[in-house]
């Protein structure tokens, strides 16, 4: 199985974790295509998401870990296992690539001619999207099977942004969907769909981190399933219905947080389906 990784930054923990986890399972990527470390839109997004202090701290631990502990070097503690290597952790994609011997190519835009040419050269069976630009059809068509994405909600119920928060607010079970990407927002065929247990999650950030880590495992399972031919994609029902959600305002997030506290106590949450 030839796999390409698409990343928003060489320092993306999720990108590193996906590449490392797949390689650990024997699916060494044929290459990783990443946006530059200083991509403006990624930086602005992270500043908005984490705030200045956390963003600077993240940059510091990735660029100059110094005496920081392993735990401090990984922002998402649930990815620690996937990122662990020897006595340390992978701090960026190039370190993963060096160990498992695959190329990392930086491009200004994942839809650029250069990116398209590189992907065509790698001729992947499947690409895994862990962040970056909104991909154009030309890019989506390059991998033989398609481009996979891990979406942090059950599809088709909740599409778009802030999906765990919207799941809580709308009374939809928390979940993760692994799906092929198409020209719509989270409208592509679904490969895996699992409900997710919120038990033990202290905050929305904690929930999101846990779900991201779970999504990495599910992506690995999906790749293995595709390789063995044990999973197949199913087109989404009522694709035309507009179920897209957008970035949630913090006042609604505060209500979602209250719901999270209730959900995590509920024995009903967390059933898994495959």
């Amino acid at each position, binding site marked *: 199985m030839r796999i390409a990784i698409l990343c928003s930054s060489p320092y993306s923990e999720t990108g590193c974790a996906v590449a490392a986890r797949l390689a650990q399972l024997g699916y060494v990527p044929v290459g990783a295509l990443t946006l530059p470390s200083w991509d403006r839109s990624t930086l602005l997004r992270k500043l908005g998401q984490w705030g200045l202090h956390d963003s600077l701290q993240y940059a510091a631990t990735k660029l100059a870990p110094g005496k920081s502990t392993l735990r401090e070097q990984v922002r998402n503690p649930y990815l620690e296992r996937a990122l662990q290597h020897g006595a340390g952790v992978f701090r960026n994609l190039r370190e993963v690539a060096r160990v498992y011997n695959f190329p990392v190519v930086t491009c200004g835009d994942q839809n650029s001619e250069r990116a398209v040419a590189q992907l065509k050269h790698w001729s992947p069976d499947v690409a895994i999207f862990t962040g970056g630009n909104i991909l154009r059809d030309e890019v989506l068509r390059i991998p033989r099977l398609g481009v996979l994405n891990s979406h942090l909600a059950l599809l088709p119920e909740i599409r778009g942004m802030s999906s765990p928060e919207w799941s809580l*607010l709308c009374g939809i*079970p928390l979940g993760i969907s692994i799906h092929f990407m198409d020209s719509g927002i989270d409208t592509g065929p679904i*490969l895996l769909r699992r409900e997710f247990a919120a038990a033990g999650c202290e905050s929305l950030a904690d929930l999101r981190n846990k779900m991201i880590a779970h999504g990495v495992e599910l992506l690995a399972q999906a790749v293995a399933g595709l390789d063995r031919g044990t999973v*197949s*994609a199913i087109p989404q029902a009522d694709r035309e219905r507009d179920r897209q959600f957008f970035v949630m305002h913090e006042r609604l997030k505060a209500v979602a947080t209250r719901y999270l506290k209730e959900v995590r106590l509920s024995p009903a949450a967390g059933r898994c389906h*495959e």
Partner: protein
Amino acid sequence: MNSPQSSSSGNFETNKAVRVLTEAAGLLRRPQRAISLVSKLASDGLRTTFEHRHLYSYATATVPTADALRSVIDWILHAQRPDGGIAAYYSLLTGYSDPYPEVTGYIIPTLYDSCRLTGGEAARHAAERATHWLLSLQMPSGAFPGGLHDSSSAQPSVFNTGQILQGLVRARAETGTAEIMERAMAAGNWLAAMQQANGSWSGPAAYQGVAHTYYSMVSWALAQLADASKDPRHAAAADRNINWVLSHVKPSGWIDGINLRGHPAYLHFIAYVIQGVLECGILRRRDDAIQTAAKPAWVLLRKFETHKRLLGTYEADFRGGLPFTCLTGNAQMSCVWLRLFEVTGDLRYLNAALKLNEMLKQLLPLKGRRGVVGGVAGSDPIWRAYQPMRFISWGAKFLADALMLEQRLMREFEEQSEAKCEIKPEIKPEASECA
């Protein structure tokens, strides 16, 4: 609102040139205004040069809603002239304008709402003075004049009469005064009499002499009057006009027939069409009108969420327009989304309105002279096409409405969610078919 200038003038360009010269001369009369002018031009210039929107724009609360609301209501109170009329605008060049009957009318519900919310008697007193002034302007036919109060050739205006009618209906409900009801009935009867057989309003009492779909705001006023008067003629007139407006809906959600000569379809007018249809639909219990209003409202919501802003103007079918912000139109869309949340329960409307209000609050001047602090500029940046160099009273009215609606709906929503948590909801995992 229509242009405060004479609505029947055929010489639009000449009027515009005269206006520019008059405003420029205003700065010569009061050179000290140059400080506010330069300061606003510089701050808008800097912001538009360096500010870049990103995915999380406006998702964080930066200005408390109550503070912003207080500041906007204070701006409205300061804009009230000694005779009781509210100025149309505060110009950075010429200062406060003459009072404007149309805005004075439909700002009355805003003042009463503010009084209810904060208990501030100043707003109630202002509403009563505004009502008194308006009653003194009513024509024997029941109509109200268009244009600013000092217009030498004031003509009866359908749109302005409709907008003022909103204020009269509310003033009557608040005070129980029989005379106000009689005057409101006279205005409603005049509107019904002036209506064309197809449900539109055109002719000399219509802006530029032609029919406009944004007169759905007049239908809303008639529907309010019908609720109060129980007179079927007013309800029928409102329904007829809404039927006419609904016949202009295109598959894209765009509602044709804004029909303004000499200037583009500003978001303000597009939002008028939607708001009038929606509110009339709610009052008349017409699902067809609510659904029709929801369609363009959703198109604009998607545009706001995707691009982090709404354009100042749109061409037919929302195909593009001028890249500036019409703040009044934004405040109106916030009102529309909040009402759609109230009607449909779809939280995406509430979410978008919260973010839009964040943007509007951030653009509210909190420092400066009277007329500037708490004022809503016509355009952002202030020198762009819609009411340049002015803080406009109808912008303040719609922002105050949006902030008060936000406060009420968020309070209700938070109370409901607390109650829901208290009874420990069980989020049921539905049987989820997986691949």
